[in-house]
């Protein structure tokens, strides 16, 4: 092994070590070998937690929110990237507005979402002042609602900025010259979009879409502000158990933590698998 690869692998170990320690501990705790409420080895705790319906409804709810908000954000990013790709002033302004929310923390976005979409939020006030709403109760529930619409809209707004940034760069770096090639080969604008722009865009955007999905599925801040208590989203359920006074229930949190990690890793692995099948882009 050369010096460079030894150094590199040591660096890899250094950056991943805290996570590996955390995972290792969570595995041991999930198997009841250590940690709060440890009751000797075995898969009993694992089986018990995974047998609870509330775990699976929480996971399903988190996946629904992640899928819906990611899909909304990605669709918006594709449309905006395709519409505002040139060098004109309006294009540059549109790109600036699109990426503006990028550095805003999720919690701040969630507070704005609550003040806008809540039962007595700005939207309800505006509807009321237009005479469309009698009382706050008349406002369709967008916050703490079972469908998670307020959370989905907030997360989609926040993640749209990131996906738009990636989409702009995909279109700018790869798109234009290949589109020219397609045109001189005889493709009309619709065919150029369908056969060149769109395939390039979605392939270029996919890694970012997967990253957003993984992030959103496990995000805590916005979920804690906007999500309902039933079903309780997986990240909220995990922390609820972890802060439980009952030590046995506290230990259950490690199973949920591993479940959250498994979702992230599965999504990343699925993406890697798909990418290796479709073939990679030229670097």
């Amino acid at each position, binding site marked *: 092994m050369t010096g460079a690869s030894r150094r590199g692998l040591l660096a890899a170990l250094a950056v991943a070590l805290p996570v590996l320690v955390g995972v290792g501990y969570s595995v041991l705790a999930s198997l009841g070998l250590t940690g709060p409420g440890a009751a000797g080895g075995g898969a009993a705790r694992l089986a018990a937690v995974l047998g609870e319906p509330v775990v699976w409804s929480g996971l399903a709810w988190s996946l629904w929110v992640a899928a819906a908000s990611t899909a909304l954000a990605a669709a918006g990013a594709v449309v905006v990237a395709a519409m505002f790709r040139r060098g004109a002033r309006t294009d540059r302004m549109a790109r600036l507005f699109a990426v503006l929310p990028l550095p805003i923390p999720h919690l701040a976005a969630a507070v704005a979402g609550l003040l806008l979409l809540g039962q007595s939020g700005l939207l309800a006030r505006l509807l009321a002042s237009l005479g469309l709403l009698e009382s706050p109760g008349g406002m369709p529930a967008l916050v703490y609602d079972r469908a998670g619409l307020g959370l989905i809209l907030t997360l989609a707004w926040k993640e749209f900025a990131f996906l738009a940034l990636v989409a702009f760069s995909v279109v700018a770096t*790869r798109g234009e*010259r*290949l589109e*020219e*090639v*397609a*045109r*001189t*080969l*005889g*493709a*009309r604008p619709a*065919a*150029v979009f369908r*056969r*060149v722009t769109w*395939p*390039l865009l979605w*392939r270029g955007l996919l890694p970012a879409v997967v990253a957003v999905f993984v992030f959103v599925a496990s995000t805590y801040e916005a979920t804690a502000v906007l999500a309902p208590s039933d079903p309780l989203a997986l990240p909220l359920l995990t922390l609820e158990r972890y802060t439980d006074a009952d030590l046995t229930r506290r230990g259950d949190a490690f199973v949920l933590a591993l479940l959250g990690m498994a979702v992230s890793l599965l999504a990343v692995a699925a993406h890697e698998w798909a990418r290796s099948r479709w*073939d*990679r*882009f*030229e*670097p």
Partner: protein
Amino acid sequence: MTAPTLEVRGVSVPFGDAPGLRDIGFALDPGERLVVLGASGAGKTTLLRAIAGLAPLAAGRLTVGGHDVTARPAESRDAVYLHQTPLLFPHLSVFENVAFPLRIRGYRDSEVRASVAELLESVRLEGLAGRRPHTLSGGQKHRAALARAMAARPAVLLLDEPLSALDPALRDEVRATLLSLQARYRPAMVIVTHDLEDAAVLGDRIGILLGGTLAQLDQPGRLFRRPASLAVARFLGVPNLVAGSVSASQFESALGPIPVEAETPRGPATAVFGSGALHPDPCGSLRGVVRSVHHGPRGVTLRVDVAGIELEAAPGAGAIPDPGDEFSLGLERDRVTVLPGTGDV
């Protein structure tokens, strides 16, 4: 008489704030190859993009096969533009890249298959149909891009420096493919390059793009022997430029009188000739001393001091002289062009 495959008339193209290209005009017959030579920045790419419909014209008219295409978008001009580096679609296989022009024209799958197979075979890529572009070598990418261009059956093929970025072996490979495809599908070609060698090998005719206009448009033989202006002669790198002046009907210089055509304007002028026009000749009227001998890939040239002027000469059929040798030289007068002006020669 049939219409030319491509006719460019009075075309002006702005680039940026610069005056750009002005009043470009030429016409190509089917299967004809025109090479446009110009220094980098002369606007060669701009010209091709304008013909392809990718850059707007300020003035002028373009016809393809007799149809005015000036106002048509790029996709309906019947002219395919090939970038210098082959730009294959990265998300499509080699097969689907070549099939692209056929798919968008709505050909049936069986027709696409047959046609693509034939094209891939003609560029010797039949075994690589399923590969992705990034797995191809440089030469294979070029061949695939050429096959894809031909799949559109264009009347006009526009090639931007097709050989410039290639190493010598690859150059021959791509040039051979280019010529064999053209022999088979007969598109007219406009090829832009800064390389004199490429121009000489590829062009049926060569246009010199200088200062935004076509300074000369001629067959290679005539172009290299009879440059139209001193600027063209300098651009072509004609080795011998001898200053003098025209009076009565002859050109006077240190090399002695040379008869000129009657319409040559009087005054300062320059005699222009290649090294082949000057060679050892026992009956020659000039005396020269060899300064140095250069052995190059295409033979030997001599640097000779003649009457205080250093000239390039060919060694002729005899033995190659050594530096310091003195001998008589003959100048083939009919291979000498006398051009008005002296510039800084």
